[in-house]
């Protein structure tokens, strides 16, 4: 889920400020018609924000989801998925040097490598010997400074259990990296993370679209006495 939120928030940050508040007749949303390569739906269907679609505008589809129930096959599917994701992010990296874009794409390049290792390791425990086949793609990250920085934090060799409870992840994800580039490790809990960007009103999109009366009703709710959540015993 975290990666979904990361990418969606990055898209929102990239869209932030792409239109200015003006009188409607001054065409504040003319940017939406700058095709090709602008997604008009970002401005028309969403309020200058992300959508669950791909870069061609195709809606997300459950047909993408593979769960065969067969453990070996699922591990192969997952490895293929992470490798393809990383390949695409390495291509995306080469399309823009916008800072927010680069920060997220580079983070995902490193994390997708870590995930490739998880499934490669799992398949190793089941008998596969990868030799020099992986990772996909073979990238010289010395030419990608943001990726290099994250690798220096060992982010490409770490997985978190993502729980406060016990996890057997460390039984698999330990020891030599399957790509012979260090030692992999399992850490308890969650990574540090960053703040979720908060988004301002965009009146030219009529978002959130609250007039003074509605705003004062919202303020009343926010000023009301302490939250009445009942704590579970």
């Amino acid at each position, binding site marked *: 889920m975290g990666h979904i939120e*990361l990418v969606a928030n990055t898209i929102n940050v990239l*869209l932030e400020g792409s239109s200015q508040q003006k009188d409607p007749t001054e065409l504040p949303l003319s940017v939406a018609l700058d095709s090709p390569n602008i997604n008009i739906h970002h401005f028309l269907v969403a309020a200058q924000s992300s959508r669950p679609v791909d870069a061609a505008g195709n809606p997300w589809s459950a047909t993408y989801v593979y769960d065969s129930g067969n*453990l070996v096959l699922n591990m192969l599917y997952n490895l293929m998925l992470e490798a393809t994701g990383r390949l695409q992010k390495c291509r995306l990296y080469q399309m823009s040097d916008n800072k927010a874009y680069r*920060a997220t794409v580079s983070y995902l390049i490193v994390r997708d490598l870590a995930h490739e290792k998880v499934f490669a390791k799992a398949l190793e425990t089941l008998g596969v010997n990868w030799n020099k086949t992986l990772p996909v793609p073979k990238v010289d990250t010395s030419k990608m400074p943001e990726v290099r920085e994250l690798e220096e934090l060992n982010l490409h060799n770490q997985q978190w259990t993502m729980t406060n409870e016990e996890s057997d992840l460390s039984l698999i994800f330990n020891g030599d990296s399957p790509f012979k580039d260090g030692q992999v490790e399992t850490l308890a809990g969650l990574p540090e993370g960053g703040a979720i960007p908060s988004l301002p009103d965009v009146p030219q999109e009529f978002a959130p679209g609250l007039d003074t009366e509605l705003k004062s009703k919202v303020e009343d709710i926010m000023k009301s006495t302490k939250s009445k959540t009942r704590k579970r015993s």
Partner: protein
Amino acid sequence: MILFQKLGNMISIYYNRYIVYETNKIIFISINKVPNPIPRNDKPNPKAAHALQEGLGGQFGEMRTMMQYLFQNMNFRGDAKPYQDLLR
């Protein structure tokens, strides 16, 4: 999300109603952060936003990845629990 996961578990249990398994690990904790900081000091770039949609909703994007692992975890069969913990 947690309801969604419990629903998924219920569906699996329905098909296995003669066998009872104790598999009620909660997958999602809700923390108000993103995994990596997003710098906000650069110019807007709607074309880059358009390209990055592939990473979110594309055939090999994050939504698919999350759903794939979620269903593989919810529908997990058998005793190889370490492989289930892999799928978080």
